[in-house]
């Protein structure tokens, strides 16, 4: 049962070839490159969405922080589209892989922190000591702030992994239960099926929210450091 339940999270390889590369690159096919001044509906809709997200996200940043606009819009679109594609049956969701999320979180967080150290050294070091702390508490508070700084990339990665994995697991389990209950008691199977539908709606929301949260936190770390 364990083997079967987690089998959708094994990195797909077909006869030794890592087709996970193709699966990760697939969402880029869904964003066509605009070639004209006035584009077709799909490209125009995506441009409108990108502008909406950019205006909302980049408003609070200084000009230095706004140089990250391309990175952040790519991040939110990539995670959002990958999560949504993962809701299709029998598909593989790359964001369930801890490797990929760590690979996204650590470089982005490190980039924001190192930018802060390079350009505003005093201000970024001052983050380690909140204002108005009593003098005897200072050493302990510096240690706590350091730990909370270094846990940021881990939390980013594990948050995304755990949320998407848990959602997928729940859908597997409840779907399997609904299927098994049909022969035992159809009423209970119907109730379970309704729970499954509600859970699927939740998973749509979670897919988008997790992309937003990831990007928002990276944006926040950037704001602290620019």
């Amino acid at each position, binding site marked *: 049962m364990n083997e079967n339940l987690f089998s959708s*999270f094994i990195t797909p390889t077909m006869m030794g070839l890592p087709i996970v590369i193709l699966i990760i690159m697939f969402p880029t096919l869904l964003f066509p490159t605009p070639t004209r001044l006035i584009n077709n509906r799909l490209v125009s809709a995506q441009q409108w969405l990108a502008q909406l997200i950019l205006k909302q996200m980049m408003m609070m940043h200084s000009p230095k922080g706004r140089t990250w606009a391309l990175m952040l819009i790519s991040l939110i679109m990539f995670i959002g589209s990958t999560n949504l594609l993962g809701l299709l049956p029998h598909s593989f969701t790359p964001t369930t892989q801890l490797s990929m999320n760590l*690979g996204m979180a650590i470089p982005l967080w490190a980039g924001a922190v190192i930018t802060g150290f390079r350009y505003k050294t005093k201000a970024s070091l001052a983050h380690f000591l909140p204002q108005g702390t009593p003098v005897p508490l200072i050493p302990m508070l510096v240690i706590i702030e350091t730990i909370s700084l270094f846990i940021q990339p881990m939390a980013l990665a594990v948050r995304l992994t755990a949320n998407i994995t848990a959602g997928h697991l729940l859908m597997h389990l409840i779907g399997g239960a609904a299927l098994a209950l049909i022969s035992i008691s159809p009423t209970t199977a119907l109730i379970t099926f309704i729970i499954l539908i509600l859970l699927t709606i939740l998973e749509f929301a979670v897919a988008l929210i997790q992309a937003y949260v990831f990007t928002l936190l990276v944006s926040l770390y950037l704001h602290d450091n620019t």
Partner: protein
Amino acid sequence: MPQLDTSTWLVTIIAMILTLFILIQLKFHKYSYPLSPAPKTFKSTSFPTPWETKWTKFYSPLLLPQQ
């Protein structure tokens, strides 16, 4: 948990770096948001000489003091 099997981590991370930092950004950096067309303000290349900036007198041949 299959996510903790580190043998596939390198492939996944490299594929993700390629996609996120190169492929997707190549799609999004082509998005342009042009402003609505508006007439451009003219900038003249010739500058008025100091005596031409102020129109103080009206010179016409018939208004010159007659000789």
